[in-house]
């Protein structure tokens, strides 16, 4: 039986008079990669920011594993097992890989010292090395290396591994392949599949439809703040999806798509 992980019901968000998100409802299941597609301004980033707690929603409900939740901060989202990885904004380049992996959740000794508690450096390094090994990038990477010395693909992989590390139920990837070379893009996409196979659910936001067809199970298309199409990858093709995104003769296409 398919296990529902995240369900959004009629999410709405306005900024002043701009209705960035008119109404969005969809369900994300366990071990599934869902691609969220749409042109610039379609409301994709508003939607994922709402889920990841960057700002509160105006109306609508969010359910995690069937439980209604309220997400008011990024911390709330993380505590619920929702990890968001933004292009370029996920890692601090001047910190080591190990320190980045545990940023905000540092293992410490003498916990009662609060923010002044000393980092458990040995545990930090060991856990980071174990993690790097598990995700298969240990040969090249040293847990003490600064993130600024890594390539874009390596950084994405580190950010995704970090989300996996904290047993995230839902991993949101915001444009994970932007600015990456061909080889690195394939590495990241392969990694996305591994993440899914490990039982995590992935919400993939991207402009690149080709990537979607390589890794996604389902596709959700947004236009002008609304979800206009939802299809399994097997039931559709690249051209159909492309025309839905751009909105060229939508009604006919949707009918056709549903008829299939």
């Amino acid at each position, binding site marked *: 039986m398919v296990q529902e992980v995240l369900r959004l019901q009629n999410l709405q968000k306005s900024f002043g008079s701009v209705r960035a998100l008119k109404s969005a409802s969809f369900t994300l299941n366990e071990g599934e990669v869902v691609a969220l597609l749409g042109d610039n301004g379609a409301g994709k980033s508003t939607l994922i920011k709402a889920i*990841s707690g960057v700002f509160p929603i105006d109306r609508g409900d969010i359910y995690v594993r069937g439980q209604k939740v309220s997400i008011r901060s*990024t911390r709330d989202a993380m505590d619920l097992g929702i990890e968001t990885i933004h292009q370029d904004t996920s890692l601090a380049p001047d910190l080591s890989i190990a320190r980045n992996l545990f940023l905000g959740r540092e293992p410490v000794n003498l916990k009662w*010292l609060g923010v002044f508690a000393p980092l458990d450096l040995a545990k930090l390094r060991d856990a980071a090395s174990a993690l790097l090994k598990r995700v298969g990038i240990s040969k090249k990477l040293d847990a003490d290396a600064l993130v600024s010395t890594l390539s874009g693909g390596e950084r994405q992989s580190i950010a995704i591994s970090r989300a996996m590390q904290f047993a995230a139920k839902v991993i949101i990837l915001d444009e994970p392949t932007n600015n990456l070379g061909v080889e690195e893009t394939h590495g990241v996409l392969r990694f996305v599949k591994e993440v899914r196979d490990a039982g995590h659910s992935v919400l993939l936001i991207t402009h690149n439809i080709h990537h979607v067809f390589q890794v996604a199970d389902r596709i959700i298309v947004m236009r002008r703040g609304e979800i206009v199409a939802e299809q399994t990858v097997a039931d559709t093709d690249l051209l159909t999806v492309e025309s839905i995104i751009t909105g060229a003769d939508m009604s006919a296409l949707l009918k056709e798509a549903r008829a299939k």
Partner: protein
Amino acid sequence: MPVGKRRSSLIRSPQFSSLVILIVLLAVFAIADANFLSPLNISNMMAFLPELGIIALGMTLLLTAGEFDLSVGAVFGLAPVVVMLLVQNGGVDIGVALLAGLLLCIAIGAINGLIVTKIGISSFLVTLSMLLVVRGAALYITQGFPLKSWDQPGFFVTLLAGSFNIGSFRFYTSLWWFVGLSLLAVYVLRYAKLGNWISAIGSNRNAAVARGVPADAVKIWLFILTSVLAGLAGMISAFRISAASPVAGTGYELEVIAMVVVGGTALTGGRGTILGTIVGALMLRAIRNGIVLIGVPGLAYNIFVGVIILAMLILHALLQKNAARS
């Protein structure tokens, strides 16, 4: 990390190159003038060192978090002026007056921090305005005159500016303050959870916030810390020379920032080194002292200070480029 690799990264680190240059500078001054290393001169340098050095510690943490504070020199001037006015004209107990000074510094830092983080104005502009407000306040409440000398010894004077002799060296208790605060700052930045947050905020604020790090709160507390340290340094200085002047600390903000960046802390945030700052503080102190001793004309000596700082920064930039290439 293998030992060899660790050693080479230490040698390439900015604080190490600063240390080498400091040693070279000290050697040059010592050879040029034998008095440079005399107990009297070393005692002199050590008397001045903590006053700017203490502020530099706060500034290092603040710069690492990606912000800076131009109002420290003015706070350095205002805090003792307020304390001494309260004592001399208001008849307030010195302990109470010091507490009032502390609260004033906390307020100044909090205002800086709140405006920078909550309204989103660059710290350059906010603290530049604060510099004018604070310096203006110091001038206004004193009508521009230095306050009568303060020569009543007591617990607080001894605590902040007492002195003791080791052999023929004369040291002030302020040196202990500097040493203690330095150790604390090294601990916080390198080994504490907070230090990880500070570096992450300066390196990539969005990443830190996305991980649940309370970036704004951390920055506000660092502004408060920097302001309080500037006030503490001002008190130490005022007690040491037994006077409070409304223009004390003029230009200190730039000298402190110079100490910090010469030590290898990045002006753009993310990379901070307390050890480097200590080296930087020693270096600027030694330069100011040394070039006077070797007979550079007083009016020309800022030229030398500027040139040496520039040379240091160029060296750091070249080392950085080299490291990036390898």
